[in-house]
């Protein structure tokens, strides 16, 4: 991995925009940008994993490519994280961390998802996506299409709201009867 200057592409009005953008890049990142030039771009954030930003509509295709391309062989989807940027559009980021057990290379993919948008489920490709996506649905309220069983996982089914959203009000929870 080496550092290089980042390009100018990326989300506009992104509050997570870094003042001095540095990007860790790798052969995998270069390959993806070359092959999917119109839907993959370098990330602007300072990151410690080789990362790319992918457009939501291309996620399914690129994920399939990552898994099936024999020179990449990303067989291990270690984690999916959801992040809320309430002032940004699209509002959410999904961050996928991929590992190839064979080649030992890693890749993080960031996808912006709007409040009304639905992300494709990667459960048919990696079974580990199942519970990760349920957790994101539960705590951030992002919808996934094609998920076999999209229910809340950590909170009770009748829970209202999504606690990991930045605008979730905690104060009500802290009050006890008689307070």
């Amino acid at each position: 991995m080496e550092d290089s200057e980042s390009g100018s592409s990326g989300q506009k009005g992104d509050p997570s925009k870094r003042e001095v953008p540095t990007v860790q890049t790798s052969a995998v990142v270069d390959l993806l940008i070359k092959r999917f030039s119109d839907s993959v771009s370098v990330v602007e954030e300072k990151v410690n994993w080789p990362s790319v930003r992918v457009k939501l509509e291309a996620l399914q295709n690129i994920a399939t490519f990552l898994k099936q391309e024999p020179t990449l062989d990303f067989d291990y989807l270690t984690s999916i994280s959801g992040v809320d940027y309430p002032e940004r559009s699209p509002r959410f980021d999904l961050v996928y961390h991929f590992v190839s057990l064979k080649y030992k290379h890693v890749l993080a993919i960031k996808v912006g998802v709007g409040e009304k948008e639905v992300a494709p489920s990667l459960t048919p490709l990696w079974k580990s996506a199942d519970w990760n996506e349920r957790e994101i649905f539960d705590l951030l309220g992002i919808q996934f299409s094609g998920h076999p069983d999209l229910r809340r996982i950590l909170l009770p089914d009748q829970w209202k709201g999504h606690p990991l959203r930045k605008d979730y009000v905690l104060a009500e929870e802290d009050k006890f009867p008689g307070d």
Partner: protein
Amino acid sequence: MVEPRRKFKTERLFINMGPQHPSTHGVLRLGLSIEGERVVSVFPDVGFLHRGIEKLAEKRTYVQFIPLTDRLDYLAAMSNNLAFVLAVESLLEVEIPRRASYIRVIVAELSRLASHLVWLGSFANDLGASTPLLYCFREREDILDAFEILCGARMTFNYVRFGGVARDATPEFVEKCRKFLSTFDKRVDEYEQLLTNNVIFVNRTKNVGILSREDAISYAASGPMLRGSAIKWDLRKDAPYLVYPEMDFIIPTGTVGDVWDRYVVRIIEMRQAARILRQALDGLPEGDFKAKLPRVLKPAMGEAYSRVEAPKGELGFYVISDGTTNPYRVRIRAPSFINLAAISAMTEGALIADLVAILGSIDIVLGEVDR
């Protein structure tokens, strides 16, 4: 007239195992769909212990969050401290002193031993062998005593800090570790005598709860679960951190991925952890145990994902900094949570009695599953 036996039909039943069930070691509910004694499908229901730790992180400073990581996998709290601290250090871009790195390896491996010992004792107990439980807890007591000498706490340490560790390893602590290690290998032989050659134990674990190689990878199982399914993958070797590259140890793997393989992998891992500990204690260099850092930590804007080989598998922390004193987002990739998801693949067609063995072999801690 009684109908001939073969005409009896088995009705499919739905029963609950848990949330209060001794073999779940915490509050986990398994919804079981059964036909006779066979399990048709399992629906794990988690979240009873959800405390919103990821949300709490956003309201606290980086330093204030370290004690909360103790409450994830509370049987190996040092590993949790370490994983979070490594992620933030990657944002801070700080070099840590060599001595601190060695001490971290020592506490991480002691944690692995403590965690595996609790697992071994309670797993054997679940299968009806209550003697190992007492022995395992006796050895774990020594480890907790060593931790107490080191940092004053026995379970929730808050010991690994940004730039190093909270307090230096005293000669007393080193002495305690050496004394413990001098008898430990013999103790493992004792456990093996009780279990490895025990025909009841072998029959209850061999070819039970098989997790295929493909499923193990697809479910992103990690730790002994992944290695039990014959995949040689250990972050200490494959994505090295701290001073692990300088240590000499082997990565055990299973062959078929059954409960027995996971047991064997953990037993060998205990021996290997003891081996790493001896090397780390011998090589422990002099010097600082903590790097100098500003009192108020404000990591530069950016994000870091860092992972360590915790006793239960890959423990990852994804930390996003917005340049303020509090993290913008902390996401915890908990090994128990991800490993537990694979239970449905392992229990198809299993006997209800074997379910206890299968669940035990995953080695979950609900504090980490529910976060």
